[in-house]
């Protein structure tokens, strides 16, 4: 296990807490009817998100999918804007036009969540092509779910990236289901990462995707490999979403036992225990971080609630660039 600076680790922990607290809060808001449409939560997948994103550098890029809250927060988006966006407000990240499925932060390398399964893959290889053509040394992380691996775009994009040796990490967050459909029922192999062989690129499984350090370490190694110009890599992480697929999912297709089993593997509890055990931080310090995170999230709700509704006229703006 590589050494991680204490500050870095504490920061990663904070980001995990932000994801957890933010999504728990959004879930409450959904239940109160304050959030239109569908919202997909990252609760339970904090390590898979933060461990990955923490390994890239400023200027690197990501594309994300419908379940993008975790990645956006890991990319350190402004929570006020994000909460306001989810509530459809004028001061939201997207001026209330995009919502949960379209959170983006272009200035900070987040090319956006996406409502189309597989929809971000083309963008990811294109962004990677730009980095290669302009020789920027930057890389792209293309995030998607287990279910997305059966879209044709996966095949085409990984293949194109492989022959052009594009600097992109294809990152599949395997939470075992695509809506109600177990990944095991829709692929005839054990894991999707094995498909890397079809493109002559490395593929790896991060078996314990709830272990922050395991994810981070594998990502660091992979980021280095990709940044050195060796072409793309396919990484797969096993984790689990605690909530239903979206804000409106009854969840009949999973047993309570399965969900409970995974809750025992809580990625936040585990890294917390690790840090205490290793003497990196005291329980009190860590709880303090949690309190701060919760306060920040409450703050974001206040910000969102006090943000104005977008004007009617604004609906007709931003269609075309000048």
């Amino acid at each position, binding site marked *: 296990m590589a050494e991680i600076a204490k500050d870095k680790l504490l920061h990663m922990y904070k980001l995990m807490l932000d994801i957890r607290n933010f999504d728990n809060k959004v879930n409450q808001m959904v239940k109160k009817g304050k959030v239109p449409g569908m919202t997909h939560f990252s609760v339970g997948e904090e390590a898979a998100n933060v461990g990955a994103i923490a390994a890239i550098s400023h200027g690197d890029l990501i594309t994300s999918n419908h379940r993008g809250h975790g990645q956006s927060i890991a990319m350190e988006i402004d929570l006020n804007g994000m909460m306001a966006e989810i509530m459809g407000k004028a001061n939201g990240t997207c001026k209330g036009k995009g919502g949960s499925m379209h959170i983006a932060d272009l200035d900070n390398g987040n090319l956006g969540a996406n409502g189309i399964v597989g929809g971000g893959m083309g963008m990811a290889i294109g962004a990677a092509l730009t980095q290669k053509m302009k020789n920027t040394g930057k890389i792209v992380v293309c995030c998607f779910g287990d279910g997305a691996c059966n879209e044709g775009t996966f095949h085409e994009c990984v293949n194109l990236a492989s022959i052009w040796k594009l600097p992109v990490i294809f990152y599949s967050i395997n939470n075992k289901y695509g809506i109600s459909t177990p990944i095991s029922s829709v692929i005839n192999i054990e894991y999707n990462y094995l498909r890397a062989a079809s493109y002559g690129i490395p593929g790896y499984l991060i078996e314990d995707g709830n272990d922050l350090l395991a994810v981070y370490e594998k990502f660091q190694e992979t980021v280095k490999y990709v940044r050195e110009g060796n072409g793309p890599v396919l990484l797969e992480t096993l984790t689990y979403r605690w909530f239903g697929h979206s804000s409106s999912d009854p969840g009949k297709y999973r047993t309570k036992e399965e969900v409970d089993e995974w809750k025992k593997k809580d990625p936040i509890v585990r890294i917390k225990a690790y840090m205490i055990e290793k003497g990196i931080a005291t329980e009190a310090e860590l709880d303090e971080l949690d309190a701060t995170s919760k306060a920040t999230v409450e703050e974001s709700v206040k910000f969102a609630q006090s943000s104005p509704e977008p004007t009617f006229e604004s*609906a007709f703006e931003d269609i075309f660039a000048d």
Partner: protein
Amino acid sequence: MNNETKLMTVRDAIITAMSEEMRLDENVFLIGEDVGIFGGDFGTSVGMLEEFGKERVRDTPISENAISGAAIGAAMTGMRPIVDVTFMDFIVYMMDNIVNQAAKTRYMFGGKGQVPVVFRCAAGSGVGSAAQHSQSLESWFCHIPGLKVVAPGTPADVKGLLKAAVRDNNPVIFLEYKAQYNVKGEVPTDPNFVLPLGKAEIKKEGKDVTVVTYGRMLERVLQAAQEVEESDGVSVEVVDLRTLIPLDKEAILDSVKKTGRVLLVNDAHKTNGFIGEISAIISESDAFDYLDAPILRLAAEDVPIPYNHALENAMIPNVDRIKKNILNLVNKR
């Protein structure tokens, strides 16, 4: 055929129509993402897995191209698949199979073969899912010879026309509206209740103004018609197209000749939406001479559908705007 009806939602009308057809014809089956234990993204197949089993209520990977392709290949070889496209926006991944294959196969093969397949699409906005989950793309398919396009506006029509679509020997794009799955209405219970494709229905007779519409907008148009009749004494005729391809031109032109004034309403984007086609059909026909006012259109604004709920709703024709347009028309000339 009996004349009993039952109050049910659009969702139940869909489930009933599919289930009846599946009981009648073992070649009919349902295919799509999460149609099984989940009961469909919009609950439109709840209970069907239990009745028909996994072979006929077929959960798939997230592979829209393969789903549509498999459906077409099955249709060409004797089956009659119903595809649950879920959000109509995802049909982008099915375009080759629908447009280049299903629509053209019979023609290109000189009249050999047929492709009896239905693509059920949850169209339109209204559930806060933003621009990639809110489109009504019927006009794309109306533009392609070889496809039928159906867009009913009441639970009874949904049942009768979905059954007709399943029985039709051609590829049919069938529009449902995600905002209307819970809308209720009286629906004939007889399994022989099947409506013909290609027949519009005058949902309300009138003499001053014709409003031509279909699908999701019908409800609002009927309400607006009712209201202007009560408030302003304007007599509105409402032509519900129900089927866009084949189109019941006669019903439209007859009504226009009667009233001389026409408003067209749909929830798809205005530019190159299907009501533009209706306008053009009227203007090139002998009904043109009967027109006493410009042909007005009310459609979704030409903007990607925004997330904010108020804005989302404001992009779509509502009862007030329909009323205003009707009154405008009456006051012209």
